[in-house]
Protein backbone atom coordinates (compact mmCIF):
# COMPACT_ATOMS: atom_id res chain seq x y z
CA UNK A 1 0.00 0.00 0.00
CA UNK A 2 2.79 2.39 0.72
CA UNK A 3 6.37 3.19 -0.02
CA UNK A 4 8.12 6.06 1.65
CA UNK A 5 11.34 8.01 1.81
CA UNK A 6 10.88 10.64 4.48
CA UNK A 7 9.99 9.37 7.94
CA UNK A 8 7.13 11.04 9.78
CA UNK A 9 7.09 11.40 13.51
CA UNK A 10 4.41 10.00 15.74
CA UNK A 11 1.80 12.34 17.14
CA UNK A 12 2.73 13.14 20.74
CA UNK A 13 0.30 14.44 23.32
CA UNK A 14 0.91 17.90 24.75
CA UNK A 15 2.19 17.99 28.31
CA UNK A 16 -0.42 20.10 30.02
CA UNK A 17 -1.24 20.29 33.70
CA UNK A 18 -4.91 20.94 33.07
CA UNK A 19 -7.14 18.55 31.19
CA UNK A 20 -8.63 19.88 27.97
CA UNK A 21 -12.35 20.55 28.26
CA UNK A 22 -13.00 19.77 24.62
CA UNK A 23 -13.22 16.16 23.61
CA UNK A 24 -10.35 16.33 21.13
CA UNK A 25 -6.74 15.30 21.41
CA UNK A 26 -4.20 18.04 22.13
CA UNK A 27 -0.96 17.39 20.28
CA UNK A 28 2.50 18.72 20.93
CA UNK A 29 3.56 20.20 17.59
CA UNK A 30 6.99 19.31 16.19
CA UNK A 31 9.39 22.23 16.39
CA UNK A 32 12.64 23.44 14.95
CA UNK A 33 14.46 26.17 16.88
CA UNK A 34 17.19 28.19 15.27
CA UNK A 35 19.41 30.74 16.99
CA UNK A 36 21.09 33.54 15.10
CA UNK A 37 22.85 36.72 16.18
CA UNK A 38 19.50 38.61 15.93
CA UNK A 39 17.49 36.22 18.08
CA UNK A 40 15.56 32.98 17.95
CA UNK A 41 13.34 31.58 15.23
CA UNK A 42 10.85 28.85 16.16
CA UNK A 43 9.11 26.81 13.46
CA UNK A 44 6.16 24.69 14.54
CA UNK A 45 4.09 22.28 12.47
CA UNK A 46 0.40 23.09 12.78
CA UNK A 47 -1.33 21.27 9.91
CA UNK A 48 -5.00 22.11 9.45
CA UNK A 49 -4.81 25.37 11.41
CA UNK A 50 -5.93 28.74 9.99
CA UNK A 51 -4.11 31.93 11.01
CA UNK A 52 -7.07 33.20 13.09
CA UNK A 53 -7.05 30.03 15.20
CA UNK A 54 -3.50 30.43 16.48
CA UNK A 55 -2.80 32.09 19.81
CA UNK A 56 0.75 33.08 20.67
CA UNK A 57 1.08 34.47 24.18
CA UNK A 58 3.89 35.51 26.46
CA UNK A 59 3.51 35.33 30.22
CA UNK A 60 6.64 36.47 32.03
CA UNK A 61 9.28 34.41 30.17
CA UNK A 62 6.98 31.62 28.98
CA UNK A 63 6.00 31.66 25.32
CA UNK A 64 2.89 29.56 24.73
CA UNK A 65 1.51 28.52 21.36
CA UNK A 66 -2.05 27.21 21.19
CA UNK A 67 -3.88 26.35 18.00
CA UNK A 68 -7.14 24.75 16.90
CA UNK A 69 -7.31 22.78 13.70
CA UNK A 70 -10.34 22.87 11.46
CA UNK A 71 -11.87 19.48 10.82
CA UNK A 72 -13.95 18.71 7.78
CA UNK A 73 -16.17 15.70 8.37
CA UNK A 74 -18.15 13.95 5.71
CA UNK A 75 -21.47 12.36 6.56
CA UNK A 76 -21.66 10.31 3.38
CA UNK A 77 -18.24 8.67 3.44
CA UNK A 78 -17.03 6.02 5.85
CA UNK A 79 -13.55 6.25 7.36
CA UNK A 80 -11.55 3.24 6.11
CA UNK A 81 -7.95 4.09 6.96
CA UNK A 82 -6.50 6.45 9.54
CA UNK A 83 -2.91 7.45 10.19
CA UNK A 84 -3.44 10.71 12.02
CA UNK A 85 -6.05 12.20 14.29
CA UNK A 86 -6.80 15.90 13.80
CA UNK A 87 -6.70 17.79 17.05
CA UNK A 88 -5.57 20.94 18.78
CA UNK A 89 -1.98 21.89 19.45
CA UNK A 90 -0.20 23.25 22.46
CA UNK A 91 3.44 23.79 23.33
CA UNK A 92 5.32 26.21 25.56
CA UNK A 93 8.91 27.40 25.65
CA UNK A 94 10.88 29.34 28.24
CA UNK A 95 12.71 32.32 26.80
CA UNK A 96 16.02 33.48 28.14
CA UNK A 97 16.41 36.97 29.69
CA UNK A 98 18.31 38.48 26.77
CA UNK A 99 15.31 38.18 24.42
CA UNK A 100 12.89 40.98 23.62
CA UNK A 101 9.34 39.91 24.47
CA UNK A 102 7.88 43.16 23.12
CA UNK A 103 8.81 42.54 19.49
CA UNK A 104 7.78 38.95 18.80
CA UNK A 105 6.54 38.32 15.26
CA UNK A 106 4.57 35.29 14.11
CA UNK A 107 3.57 34.13 10.64
CA UNK A 108 1.60 31.07 9.51
CA UNK A 109 2.22 29.60 6.07
CA UNK A 110 1.26 26.18 4.67
CA UNK A 111 0.60 24.85 8.15
CA UNK A 112 3.92 25.97 9.64
CA UNK A 113 4.04 28.73 12.24
CA UNK A 114 7.25 30.76 12.29
CA UNK A 115 7.81 32.81 15.45
CA UNK A 116 10.69 35.23 15.55
CA UNK A 117 11.87 36.43 18.96
CA UNK A 118 14.50 39.17 18.59
CA UNK A 119 17.38 39.58 20.99
CA UNK A 120 17.37 42.74 23.13
CA UNK A 121 19.37 45.46 21.40
CA UNK A 122 21.85 45.69 24.27
CA UNK A 123 22.39 41.90 24.22
CA UNK A 124 23.31 41.70 20.52
CA UNK A 125 26.89 40.93 19.70
CA UNK A 126 28.76 44.03 18.59
CA UNK A 127 31.99 44.31 16.77
CA UNK A 128 34.25 47.15 17.79
CA UNK A 129 36.41 48.73 15.19
CA UNK A 130 39.95 49.25 16.29
CA UNK A 131 41.24 52.71 15.51
CA UNK A 132 44.80 53.28 14.53
CA UNK A 133 46.55 55.39 17.14
Amino acid sequence: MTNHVTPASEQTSAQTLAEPARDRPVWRPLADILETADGFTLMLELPGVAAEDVEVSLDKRQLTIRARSQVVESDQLEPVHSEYVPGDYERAFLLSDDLDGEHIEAELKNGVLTVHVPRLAEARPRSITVKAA
Partner: protein
Amino acid sequence: MFYRTALYPADPFAVMRRLSDSLDRMTARATSPFPPVNIWQNGEAAAITAELPGVEPGDIDIEVKDNILTLSGERKAPEHPEGASWHRRERAFGRFTRAIRLPFRLDPEKVEARFANGVLRIAVARPDEDKPRRIAIKAA
Protein backbone atom coordinates in the same frame (compact mmCIF):
# COMPACT_ATOMS: atom_id res chain seq x y z
CA MET B 1 22.87 4.69 25.15
CA PHE B 2 23.35 3.38 28.70
CA TYR B 3 21.22 3.21 31.80
CA ARG B 4 22.40 3.68 35.35
CA THR B 5 21.15 0.64 37.21
CA ALA B 6 21.87 2.31 40.55
CA LEU B 7 18.89 4.60 39.95
CA TYR B 8 16.47 1.68 40.07
CA PRO B 9 17.52 -0.42 43.08
CA ALA B 10 14.00 -1.64 43.82
CA ASP B 11 13.03 -2.78 40.36
CA PRO B 12 15.65 -4.62 38.32
CA PHE B 13 13.22 -4.89 35.39
CA ALA B 14 12.84 -1.12 35.07
CA VAL B 15 16.01 -0.99 33.01
CA MET B 16 14.68 -3.64 30.65
CA ARG B 17 11.39 -1.78 30.33
CA ARG B 18 13.09 1.50 29.57
CA LEU B 19 15.27 -0.15 26.95
CA SER B 20 12.25 -1.82 25.38
CA ASP B 21 10.31 1.49 25.41
CA SER B 22 13.07 3.40 23.72
CA LEU B 23 13.50 0.68 21.10
CA ASP B 24 9.76 0.86 20.40
CA ARG B 25 9.99 4.62 19.97
CA MET B 26 12.90 4.31 17.57
CA THR B 27 11.23 1.69 15.39
CA ALA B 28 7.89 3.55 15.42
CA ARG B 29 9.65 6.62 14.11
CA ALA B 30 11.36 4.66 11.36
CA THR B 31 8.26 2.84 10.10
CA SER B 32 5.57 5.53 10.04
CA PRO B 33 5.30 6.86 6.51
CA PHE B 34 5.23 10.50 5.43
CA PRO B 35 2.82 12.06 4.82
CA PRO B 36 0.26 10.51 7.18
CA VAL B 37 -3.01 10.00 5.29
CA ASN B 38 -6.63 9.38 6.22
CA ILE B 39 -9.01 7.76 3.74
CA TRP B 40 -12.80 7.77 3.59
CA GLN B 41 -14.87 6.00 0.98
CA ASN B 42 -18.21 4.59 -0.09
CA GLY B 43 -19.35 2.92 -3.30
CA GLU B 44 -19.54 6.20 -5.21
CA ALA B 45 -16.57 8.23 -4.06
CA ALA B 46 -13.48 8.45 -1.89
CA ALA B 47 -11.68 11.21 -0.03
CA ILE B 48 -8.04 11.27 0.97
CA THR B 49 -6.47 13.81 3.30
CA ALA B 50 -2.76 14.15 4.00
CA GLU B 51 -0.87 16.33 6.48
CA LEU B 52 1.88 18.14 4.58
CA PRO B 53 2.94 21.09 6.74
CA GLY B 54 5.71 23.17 5.22
CA VAL B 55 5.25 21.84 1.67
CA GLU B 56 4.59 24.35 -1.11
CA PRO B 57 1.50 23.47 -3.21
CA GLY B 58 3.70 23.57 -6.33
CA ASP B 59 5.94 20.85 -4.89
CA ILE B 60 3.15 18.28 -4.68
CA ASP B 61 2.46 15.84 -7.55
CA ILE B 62 -0.64 13.70 -7.80
CA GLU B 63 -0.83 10.98 -10.43
CA VAL B 64 -3.52 8.44 -11.14
CA LYS B 65 -3.27 5.17 -13.05
CA ASP B 66 -5.94 2.46 -13.03
CA ASN B 67 -6.96 2.26 -9.38
CA ILE B 68 -3.75 3.66 -7.89
CA LEU B 69 -3.27 7.25 -6.81
CA THR B 70 0.34 8.31 -6.26
CA LEU B 71 1.19 11.29 -4.10
CA SER B 72 4.76 12.51 -4.31
CA GLY B 73 6.75 15.66 -3.80
CA GLU B 74 9.40 17.34 -1.79
CA ARG B 75 9.48 19.17 1.50
CA LYS B 76 12.32 21.63 1.27
CA ALA B 77 14.25 22.58 4.36
CA PRO B 78 13.84 26.26 5.29
CA GLU B 79 16.70 28.55 4.43
CA HIS B 80 18.75 29.78 7.32
CA PRO B 81 21.60 32.23 7.63
CA GLU B 82 25.13 31.01 8.03
CA GLY B 83 26.45 30.75 11.56
CA ALA B 84 22.99 29.90 12.90
CA SER B 85 22.78 27.12 15.46
CA TRP B 86 19.94 24.63 15.95
CA HIS B 87 18.44 24.06 19.38
CA ARG B 88 15.70 21.68 18.22
CA ARG B 89 15.45 19.74 14.96
CA GLU B 90 12.34 17.62 15.13
CA ARG B 91 11.01 18.13 11.62
CA ALA B 92 12.11 16.00 8.66
CA PHE B 93 12.71 17.17 5.10
CA GLY B 94 13.23 15.53 1.74
CA ARG B 95 11.37 13.72 -1.02
CA PHE B 96 8.33 11.57 -0.32
CA THR B 97 6.14 9.16 -2.30
CA ARG B 98 3.01 7.30 -1.31
CA ALA B 99 0.81 5.09 -3.45
CA ILE B 100 -2.81 4.53 -2.46
CA ARG B 101 -4.91 1.74 -3.94
CA LEU B 102 -8.61 2.51 -4.24
CA PRO B 103 -11.42 0.00 -4.74
CA PHE B 104 -12.34 1.41 -8.19
CA ARG B 105 -10.67 2.62 -11.36
CA LEU B 106 -9.80 6.32 -11.37
CA ASP B 107 -10.62 8.86 -14.02
CA PRO B 108 -8.17 11.82 -13.89
CA GLU B 109 -11.09 14.10 -14.79
CA LYS B 110 -12.88 13.11 -11.61
CA VAL B 111 -10.07 13.77 -9.15
CA GLU B 112 -10.05 17.10 -7.35
CA ALA B 113 -7.29 18.27 -5.03
CA ARG B 114 -7.17 21.25 -2.69
CA PHE B 115 -4.34 22.35 -0.42
CA ALA B 116 -5.00 24.63 2.54
CA ASN B 117 -3.11 25.25 5.80
CA GLY B 118 -0.72 22.38 5.17
CA VAL B 119 -3.45 19.79 4.61
CA LEU B 120 -4.10 18.23 1.20
CA ARG B 121 -7.64 17.05 0.47
CA ILE B 122 -8.28 14.87 -2.56
CA ALA B 123 -11.84 14.07 -3.63
CA VAL B 124 -12.28 11.18 -6.05
CA ALA B 125 -15.57 10.30 -7.74
CA ARG B 126 -16.11 6.85 -9.21
CA PRO B 127 -16.48 7.02 -13.00
CA ASP B 128 -19.97 6.11 -14.23
CA GLU B 129 -18.71 3.29 -16.47
CA ASP B 130 -17.04 1.68 -13.46
CA LYS B 131 -20.13 1.70 -11.28
CA PRO B 132 -21.90 -1.61 -10.72
CA ARG B 133 -25.07 -1.95 -12.82
CA ARG B 134 -28.26 -3.53 -11.74
CA ILE B 135 -29.55 -6.28 -14.04
CA ALA B 136 -33.28 -6.64 -14.18
CA ILE B 137 -34.55 -10.22 -14.18
CA LYS B 138 -37.03 -10.88 -16.90
CA ALA B 139 -39.96 -13.12 -16.45
CA ALA B 140 -39.51 -16.32 -18.40
